[in-house]
């Protein structure tokens, strides 16, 4: 039996893997911040989501100002304003602890953008809203409970 074609194709796939790894290693570091973090978005509980987003031991902070309703009648459209007073804020992450996938999104503030964002999110049920700020490689966190009258996950 001739195994030559097999061997050749495995060599080819090894070369392809090597090229892919090399490309990943050479990619500039700054693009990493803006990558869509599949593991974090797919996580089914908030601890897993935080871990996958690289957020370890965030410190509770009073410098993160969250404006959101105490009671949201429509979980499909919950308005959230976030202002970070933490110096050197690079990124704001939003999590809803009790959503089926808690990681809602992240916002990277580059040159010129003020560390403020206003948006609307979906909440499946009453939950803690958890906001994490990354500043100079450190993580800061603030939470707020939002009561939801009609859940918005089927929306």
């Amino acid at each position, binding site marked *: 039996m001739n195994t030559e074609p097999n061997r050749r194709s495995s060599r080819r796939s090894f070369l392809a893997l090597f090229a892919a790894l090399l490309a990943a290693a050479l990619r500039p570091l700054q693009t990493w911040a*803006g990558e869509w973090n599949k593991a974090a*978005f797919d996580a089914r509980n908030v601890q897993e989501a935080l871990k996958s987003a690289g957020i370890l031991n965030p410190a509770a902070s009073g410098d993160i100002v969250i404006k959101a309703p105490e009671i949201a009648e429509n979980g499909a459209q919950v308005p959230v304003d976030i202002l970070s007073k933490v110096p050197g804020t690079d990124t704001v992450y939003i999590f809803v602890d009790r959503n089926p996938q808690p990681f*809602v999104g992240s916002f*990277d503030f580059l*040159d010129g*953008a003020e560390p*403020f964002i206003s948006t609307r999110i979906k909440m499946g049920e009453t939950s803690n809203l958890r906001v994490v700020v990354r500043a100079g490689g450190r993580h800061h966190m603030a939470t707020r409970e939002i009561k939801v009258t009609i859940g918005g*996950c*089927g929306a």
Partner: protein
Amino acid sequence: MAEPIRMRVKLEGDVADVRVLIGHPMETGLRKDPKTGEPVPLHFIKSVTATLNGKAVLTAQWSQAVSRNPYMQFRIKGAKADDEVGIEWVDNRGESNRARAKVPAAG
């Protein structure tokens, strides 16, 4: 075909206040079509980039938990009248859209 992006830009001092409304269904994959009873497939914006005169100032990574027809407000420091603010998004199907708006004079 992507729905339009609506933008409103206001200049306050040297800060451009930008409000954006993006037309997009942001389907969670959990909703059922009321007619057929079939689940509507996951369809959501994954990333958004905002620029000032072509230079990225804000990037966002989203899940399907951002509300339908996403709304976003942000502020860019160091802006002046006639600068150009741009918005671009890409969704999980690889569809995308972009829009631009001039910064008006303060007032």
